[in-house]
């Protein structure tokens, strides 16, 4: 329930969210150069579609937030990508609301940026460009490195969801004491999501390291889409 609908959170929280996300979005857009827009758009689309994949979990199924993975792959560009996804979901599918768009964006984008800052340097050390024998199409990332990549993804994915959960709870609690029980229930639903999201993010990172490390473009700095 990372998409808070309209009418729940209070005015101060709404205004903080709107201003905060506007600043963050402005900063992020400055980082993403026009030439990199196509790449950013396609990856944003891929994340949007991936978040529609329903992942079986116990007797039910969940949809992923993927903001940890987005932070790892997109860096700063994760912010506009998340905003675009939230806007579309609010307007065309009724998930979330219009006035809370800022709050929802912050709740997802801050954890994504945290993941980018904390874990991209670690991943970068895994896939430093190294010479491969000509004509060799074998993966250049060793199994141990993939396992480490999996662990980094696991941590990033789980952490991002837990952070988002905390932010959602905070948005509700700051809006009124009365939301405390609801916030607690919502917080609990984030726990299994964090577990499955961590697992999936780990799998995806290990997959990318093996199949196409270029997606991670880790030889470039955080704002890779700014000088792609």
């Amino acid at each position, binding site marked *: 329930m990372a998409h808070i609908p309209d009418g729940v959170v209070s005015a101060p929280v709404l205004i903080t969210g709107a201003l905060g996300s506007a600043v963050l979005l402005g900063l992020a857009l400055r980082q993403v150069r026009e030439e990199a827009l196509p790449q950013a758009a396609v990856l944003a689309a891929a994340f949007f579609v991936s978040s529609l994949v329903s992942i079986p979990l116990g007797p039910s199924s969940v949809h992923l937030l993927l903001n940890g993975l987005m932070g790892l792959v997109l860096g700063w560009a994760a912010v506009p990508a998340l905003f675009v996804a939230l806007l579309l979901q609010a307007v065309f599918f009724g998930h979330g609301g219009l006035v809370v768009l800022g709050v929802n964006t912050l709740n997802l984008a801050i954890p994504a940026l945290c993941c980018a800052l904390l874990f991209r340097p670690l991943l970068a050390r895994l896939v430093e460009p190294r010479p491969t024998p000509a004509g060799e*199409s*074998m*993966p250049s990332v060793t199994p141990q490195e993939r396992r480490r990549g999996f662990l980094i993804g696991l941590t990033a994915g789980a952490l991002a969801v837990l952070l988002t959960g905390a932010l959602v709870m905070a948005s509700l609690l700051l809006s009124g004491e009365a939301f405390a029980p609801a916030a607690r229930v919502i917080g609990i639903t984030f726990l299994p999501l964090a577990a499955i999201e961590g697992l999936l993010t780990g799998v995806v990172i290990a997959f990318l390291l*093996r*199949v*196409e490390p270029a997606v991670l473009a880790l030889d470039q700095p955080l704002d890779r889409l700014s000088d792609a």
Partner: protein
Amino acid sequence: MPPEMGVSLTEASRVGVLAELVEVGFGYPGRPPLLQGLNLRVGESERIALIGPNGAGKSTLLHLIVGLLRPTAGQVRVLGRDCRSEADFRAVRGRLGLVFQHSDDQLFCPTVLDDVAFGPLNLGRTPEQAAAIAERTLAVLGLRGYGPRVTHRLSGGEKRLVALATVLAMEPQLLLLDEPTSGLDAVSAARLLDHLAGLPQAMLIVSHEQPVLERLTSRAVLLEQGQLQPVELHRHAHAHRHTHLHLHASGVTTDHDHLSELPVHAHPHADRQDDD
């Protein structure tokens, strides 16, 4: 008529029919009906070509047979079993091997071995069994040693062969091939055809290409206006005027006589893929 005889007759007519569509109707939501009152019966060891214009519904027909789509009218019978629900189809899907039009849609695992083992794992094999089946299937298709390679980096022809392997690993009784050679060059296509021709399975093949029809199929059906019509496939000599690309190494005279060799013209040119 003694009762045993009646039983055996019915049995005989059932056994040997791998897949059957009876008066099947289908349309995508919000579109005019695509298939109407369509009948098809694929018998054991039959090899049927399915032809028809773009958008006639050929791929749709294959998807109906494996239950990826559900008909709006009529029945789908697979291996003598009337299939209606997802559960029915799940039970028989392992027996039907559908090779998609684009291999890229079919290969999503990091390595070739993972991808080929995916089907057997879904059918309940243990990881060890699945890996063994996968290795065996790859060997059959001449892909020994491809196991650890990254699917994403294979060439178009190799991808097509691996896609075939992923399906063969499930040991299907009927192969459904959707334009198996489209987008392949002459050499890769010939290699794929060699492998297909050597397989024991019954096949339903969507294709327009002469070499495919020639080598693989025993009869053909044409899908048009939602229905199937039988089409005869036979071989004989033709002569008609058409443009032909001729590769002349520079310096060689080009005023040779093309007509003298009629009616049997042995192409001495290196224009294999343009040779229709």
